[in-house]
């Protein structure tokens, strides 16, 4: 009986002591979790029961989630496209470049074109206004034809803009579409012998004196550019162009338009080398100075420990 009383007394003491301990632990405490509990409750109230959800699309193309029990309709915010923010600053970089397409092509037989230079201003690594200046010239006496076409050195100008699709990616790679308006004042002349009928036995000399022409055209282009070393990039471009206006002469249309190419060439190419100057006023991070694809995996080389056996004392 004594033993039973002792056990009951011990049990009562233990229960009292646990109760006292518990009371200390549930003392109300104001913390961030408790402060937001009412929000969580509200959110729970707004939460749809996924088992009763059907989707429909409204006139604006939004996905609407409909609770078939309560009739509640909620726009599915996860399906709303998010416009990515600009990663690079407005004043990002400026570039100068040289288009060596025509010099290369002349080396392999092309009869026209000289050289072209360009200047660019890169905004957000996305919008890139472009100004291009070049010199064009043509001298062509084609085999199997009757004429010698000359167009002395003349300038041409183009203005336009590129749009970089990879604007939030590394600027080491650029995939751009662009538009241009170009114009050129130039002249041309032709000397030829007639290929008409020999019936009259007359050998006619055809001479078209220098004709002064101003031509304007537009171009749309697709351009790829890759950084090869430091601030130096190389780029390839395809462009489709069409003549917008040109001076009329009684002697026909010019074969070559500086900056445009030959009049039958709706498509032309470009191969450019570009030097880019960072305008953000900061040094490029060290990791950005590596060639694409050659970035180190670890920023720091781990310490190499002495692997020699140490003597255990």
């Amino acid at each position, binding site marked *: 009986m004594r033993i039973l009383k002792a056990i009951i007394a011990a049990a009562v003491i233990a229960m009292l002591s646990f109760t006292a301990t518990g009371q200390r632990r549930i003392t109300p405490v104001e913390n961030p979790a408790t402060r937001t509990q009412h929000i969580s409750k509200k959110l729970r109230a707004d939460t749809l029961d996924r088992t009763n959800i059907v989707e429909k699309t409204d006139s604006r193309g939004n996905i609407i989630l409909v609770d078939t029990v309560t009739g509640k309709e909620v726009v599915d915010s996860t399906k709303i496209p998010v416009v990515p923010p600009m990663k690079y600053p407005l004043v990002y970089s400026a570039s100068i470049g040289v288009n060596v397409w025509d010099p290369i092509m002349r080396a392999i037989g092309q009869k026209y074109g000289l050289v072209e230079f360009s200047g660019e201003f890169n905004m957000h690594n996305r919008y890139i206004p472009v100004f291009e200046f070049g010199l064009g010239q043509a001298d062509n006496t084609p085999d199997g034809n009757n004429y010698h076409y000359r167009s002395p050195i003349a300038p041409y100008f183009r203005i336009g803009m590129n749009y970089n699709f990879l604007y939030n990616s590394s600027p080491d790679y650029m995939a751009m579409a662009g538009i241009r308006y170009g114009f050129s004042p130039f002249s041309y002349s032709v000397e030829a012998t007639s290929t008409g009928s020999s019936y009259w036995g007359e050998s006619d000399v055809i001479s078209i004196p220098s004709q002064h022409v101003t031509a304007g055209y537009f171009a749309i282009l697709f351009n790829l550019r890759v950084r090869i070393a430091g601030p130096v990039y190389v780029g*390839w471009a395809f462009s489709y162009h069409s003549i917008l206006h040109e001076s009329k002469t009684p002697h026909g249309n010019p074969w070559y338009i500086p900056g445009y190419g030959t009049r039958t*060439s709706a498509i032309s190419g470009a191969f450019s080398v570009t030097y880019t100057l960072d305008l953000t006023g900061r040094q490029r991070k060290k990791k950005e100075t590596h*060639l694409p694809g050659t970035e180190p995996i670890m920023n720091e080389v781990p310490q190499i420990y002495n692997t020699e056996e140490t003597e255990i004392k």
Partner: protein
Amino acid sequence: MKSGRFNRLRLLPIIAATVIAVMTIAVESCNDIGCTDLRSSIPLAGFYSSSTGSQVTIDSLLIGGVSAPHDSLLVDSGARTSSLYLPFRAEKPSTTYFIKYVRKELDFPELTDTIKFDYTSTAYFASADCGAMFIYDIKSISYTRHLIDSVAITDSLINNMDMERIKIFFRTSE
């Protein structure tokens, strides 16, 4: 890392050359259309019946240029023709052709018809493929009317497009 850059720079000329070659082939293939017209401006004349208005084929004709070298002919008597090219003299303001009928009942010098074309000529660069040539703007036509009923010009500008611009209507029997 250096070897990666070195390999990339070694590959660059090869990549550039390949891209340029592909682009060149693409550009040239897209731009090469050739000469789809004539390489000179020679008017094409068609023969028509004045009674029916339809094109006719005529034989027993001699057609040549007045003052042509060696009295050369464009159409000889044995030929049957419904049209022919009439080349103009580029350095002259006019060209005259004669049409002599050699069928027995018509073979008289006084029945020979002549057609004279007055025009201006202009040096013209047609295209890189078709070359340079003269084009002509016909100002007037004069002709005799022995067996020719009339001559019509559908387009006074004669360039290297291969199309009929002169219609000669003959008096033909049904």
